[in-house]
């Protein structure tokens, strides 16, 4: 029982540290992409910037709009943060370093991380603001329609490792990583695109579209509630990067360094790619996004599924 407690506290500490680090890293990466420096004055190279942001957001007055739907509005940030944190339970950090090796690991993570769409929709509806309502509805449509290609691309990996447990998926890649198979590569591509939409980032950030809907679903949130959405978004980003390393890049397998280092470096490499994509691409329109999900990604995922099945039965 004590072990579980220690593991829980360790994971929680890791989550908050990684969220802080990701926020700082995103600002520095975006700054250098735009040929500028990013935070410099707050600690060495702005290292203390996320802490300053957190302290300031803590001190902010928490405004609740008068006609807001009180309970829904108050609960929304929790629904945005709790699912990604719960999804950490099944992430394989190392050979034995996994909080709980569920035998339905991947199914559990997918089920949990689709709960946060309810949080976004509650935020959209609760703050009684037309922009948030539009943002909330957009996010509901987008995440639901990108869930299907994401799960289909995961099934191709599960079929290879013929087990849902994350550790077994990683062990199945001990000789060579999944990405080397051609159909796995296709699944990895479909997964990456769908995962970007799952987390409302980059070309698919229509729920909190800066230039159209002022600040999307979190227009009315200030102070710590807004910070929760912020942390939820970055933890979610870490989750989809961790899943992509476990499924496609061989989890914690690696020649010399200890497994944890391998796992974290691969995850942060994936996160770097997502950040890079975010600061280069314009935003897709709502209907183009939906058409792309249903008419392009889902058929490719089905075809890929069929090819994997045929390959395995051969």
């Amino acid at each position, binding site marked *: 029982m004590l072990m579980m407690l220690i593991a829980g506290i360790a994971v929680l500490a890791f989550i908050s540290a990684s969220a802080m680090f990701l926020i700082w890293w995103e600002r520095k990466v975006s700054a250098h992409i735009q*040929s500028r420096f990013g935070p410099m004055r707050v600690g060495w190279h702005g290292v203390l910037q996320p802490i300053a942001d957190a302290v300031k957001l803590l001190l902010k007055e928490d405004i609740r709009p008068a006609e807001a739907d009180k309970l829904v509005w108050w609960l929304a940030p929790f629904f945005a943060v709790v699912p990604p944190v719960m999804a950490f339970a099944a992430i394989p950090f190392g050979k034995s370093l996994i909080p709980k090796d569920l035998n339905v690991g991947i199914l559990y993570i997918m089920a949990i991380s689709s709960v946060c769409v309810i949080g976004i929709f509650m935020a959209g509806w609760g703050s009684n603001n*037309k922009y948030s309502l539009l943002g909330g509805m957009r996010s509901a449509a987008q995440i639901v329609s990108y869930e299907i290609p994401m799960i289909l691309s995961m099934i191709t990996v599960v079929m290879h490792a013929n087990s849902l447990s994350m550790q077994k998926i990683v062990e199945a890649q001990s000789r060579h990583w999944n990405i080397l198979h051609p159909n796995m590569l296709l699944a990895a591509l479909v997964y990456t695109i769908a995962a970007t939409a799952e987390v409302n980032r980059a070309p698919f950030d229509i729920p909190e579209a800066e*230039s159209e809907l002022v600040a999307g679903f979190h227009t009315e949130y200030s102070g710590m509630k807004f910070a929760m959405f912020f942390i939820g978004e970055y933890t979610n980003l870490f989750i989809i990067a961790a899943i992509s390393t476990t499924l496609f890049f061989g989890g914690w397998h690696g020649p010399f360094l200890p497994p944890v280092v391998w796992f974290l470096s691969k995850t942060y490499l994936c996160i770097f790619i997502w950040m890079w994509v975010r*600061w*280069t*691409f*314009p935003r*897709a329109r709502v209907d183009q996004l939906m058409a792309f999900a249903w008419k392009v990604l889902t058929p490719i995922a089905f075809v890929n599924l069929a090819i994997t099945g045929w390959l395995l039965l051969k």
Partner: protein
Amino acid sequence: MNTSQTKDICTEEFLINMGPQHPSTHGVLSLELKLDGEMIRDCTAHIGYLHRSMEKLAENRTYTQFIPYTDRLDYVASMNNNMGYVMAVEKLLNLEISDRAKYIRVIAAELNRIASHLIAIGTFAQDLGAFATPLFYCFREREKIIDIFDQICGNRLTYNYMRIGGVQFDLPKGIDEKIKKFIKYMRSKVDDYDWLLTYNTIFLARSKHIGLLPKDLAINYSVSGPNLRASGVKWDLRKDEPYLVYEKLEFDIPVGENGDSWDRYKVRLEEIRQSLKIVEQALGALPEGDPTVKIGRIHKPSPSEIYLRTENPRGELGFFIISDGSAYPYRLKIRSPSFSNLAVLPELVKGLKIADIVCILGSLDILMGETDR
């Protein structure tokens, strides 16, 4: 749910106010949209949030005192406004200016046209969602032009450089090397934008065939500048009613095919290349002489009326000046291009989505200082 209940279930339209403070309304413009879900049924524009009553103010300023105010009209292309106003007053006084002053004016106006188009392209990409990266690249190029202007007349944005009868200072010594270096640098950058942004699939999907402005509708709304040329009308005042030394310089007019947002962006990108060509030729043919003004600052033109229009980066800027013999204009009407360009917006937007109105507004490149005067 029996049938009687289903009858009154209908989607209501709701009114959304892209109010004066909105990240992509290019200043303080308020758009009132009647939305049916994401579809825009009707859009009315409310302007006047930056109405600084320039025309009332002009009636109590002498002709020279009003020059700094023209900087604040289209505050992104101040040189072109200065030139438009000052040429109008020179026509009123039928004053001849030295050749060197004409060439300097052309160089300054074309450099400012490049700076204005860079902002137009940067904010257009930002409105399409490429957050800040293209905008900051365009601003990095624009800072180079600002350095040149800083050296010529000492100010970054509102230059107040042109005078009635010439310009304030002569060009400083090492400026033409700096301009040549900038021209070479800018040519490589414009090719970068072509490679990076113009043929990006999401960029094309978002701006191709959005906001189609047919040719006759554009002329009917007296739209002017790159928006008119993007609709296929080959009309540019620098070519059709040449002023200063434009007839001596050789450049061509980029024209779009079907007048959608992508064409307007593409025309502006091409115009940067043409302006670079103009500056290069004007710099080569710069005559000697003294461009500064020798006559006094108080002008008392004889009572008469003139109307003169020049090619601004955003369109045709016209000045209708009526003088009554005193040192103060009796009436000064400013015909601003963004005012008519914006009038087209409600017509282009019906039936499109919110993301499209932001795209069309960005491609029209309006500026509120000039619209509201």
